């Protein structure tokens, strides 16, 4: 079976993509109701970090099978 790390990578990657795309949308179309520190766009860089970590886990474990 696939190791747990593969699934960790998968869920971080999928959620990271959603947060990143949403963050870029609001970067282009700023929302009316702004949160504290909205100017540093945490969704854009945090989503990016999740995508990178997710990809690393997926690539490292995509061919691994445990018995």
């Amino acid at each position: 079976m696939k190791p747990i790390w593969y699934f960790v990578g998968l869920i971080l990657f999928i959620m990271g993509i959603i947060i990143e795309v949403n963050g870029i949308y609001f970067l282009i179309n700023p929302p009316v109701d702004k949160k504290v520190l909205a100017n540093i766009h945490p969704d854009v860089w945090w989503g990016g970090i999740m995508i990178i970590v997710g990809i690393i886990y997926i690539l490292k474990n995509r061919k691994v099978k445990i018995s």
Partner: protein
Amino acid sequence: MTAIGLSPVDWLIIAIYFGFVIGIGFYLKKFTKSEEDFFLAGRKNSSWVAGLAFLSANLGALEILGMTGNTFKYGMFVAHFYWIGAIPAMLFLGIYMMPFYYSSKIKSVPGYLKLRFDEKTRVLNGIAFAIMTLLVSGINLYAMALVLHTFFGWSWHVSMWASALTVAVYVTLSGLMSAIFTEIIQFFLIWFGLFLVSVLGLIELGGVHQVLSRIPESFNTLWSTSSNPAQNGMMITWGGIVLGLGFVLSFGYWTTDFLVVQRAFSAKNLHSARMTPILASFFKMAIPFIVILAGLIALVLANDPKSGFHLLMDNGHINYDSALPLLIARYYPEGLVGLGVTALLAGFMAGQAGNISAFNTVWTYDIYKSIINKKASDTHLLWMGRAATIVGIIISLGTAYWAMSFPSIMDYMQAIFSWVNAPLFATMLLGMFVVWITPAGAFWGLISGMVSSFIMYLAVKFSWVGLSLITLSSPSSDMAANFWRAWWAWLICFVVTIVISLFTKKKPKEELVGLVKGLTKENLNENVPFIKRPEFYAILSLIILILLNVYFW
């Protein structure tokens, strides 16, 4: 308050999490063929998998919300729960106790009590643990619904049933393995979903030193105000912290609570099982950088009128648990709110799955097979494990509705651990390290410890005696009472066990080989270089623990 609104993107992230964990349950079902697969995840996990699951089983959302709120209330003393109140016990489990647990091939902690003492001690602990697990599971479920209802406006019933059904599906399908998988996913979601709160808080306030400099000394140190209970937020002396939390409560929980120890039993060999709590200790020490830091940031913001930040009030009382959700609402934009809520949901559900998977094992082996059906086949036990999962979830839901009708039972949760785990640690310690402790001594010692802890709780609750009689100091707090009550219960169990053992029949030494130190051949590290031994990593962990305590003294 106005509920924190969720956008369609936030809902999408939450839906992905639910779909993911149910999908994992179905994926793992085809690999769950025997009772050992179901109850012990096939005993094939690496120390990393078992270690993160070991930590995550304890890292429920209730703990995260509660400890952030407690930091707001008591200050940095709460970090003791993560450092002196956890690390020494985890290292002791890995170095000294795990060889006896793992090598005896038991399936549960009560199973060790049967081998070392007798059947009645096993059944006593099995029943106490099963009741405790279902109570905690149900109260967790209620607490989750309370949080989701208060902060996000969700329906009580939908919140409880949706999460209980999801847990029921994936634990019934593949038992401990799916519980461990979801616990590890929860670990990552908590870091990615909640650590950002601390990062953004530090950016807003200008760094750690700025945060610490803006709160009083009684709230921003670990030990320097512990000589006088009037000078620290928790109103406790260093003696209560060291004896009650650092020794009894911590060792009682981390070394004997089957909920966490079961994860180490799932390791593929003794070396991995010993490394499980030791690896977990490094991550445990890092949790305050989410929980304590967020609580301190909330405290600084609440003390600054210009920040516009203040905690919720419930009937004139501060709702300390609102600290973390309100910080999420302050900093997180759409999408990240969904991630933060998912992290909390994952914590709640993984906590419940952990309780249910420990319950189904103890019920099946230590109660059902031990008392009701001694000749049950492996296939029947696998069926019984699945049935116990469903029944356990139903009882948890019942407990949750009970808690909803009587919110005061939430108060009991803090005390439950000192009723069951604190005396059990005395029994285990004596059982593993003293050859002449007898079955009668263990049984009556355990009963004395549990009953005395319960009576002390009632005595303070209903003002039969003053709190200061238990805590040996005035002023004191409920938290101090929990620490001291655990210490007294442990001491009573310890003394009664020794005294009765002096006058009752001992077990033959040949029956104790492999179960007691001194009668067991120790060849744990033959041909293993020092830097790969559990002892090396335990020393490393201990050094980091000391450095953290000195730095934040």
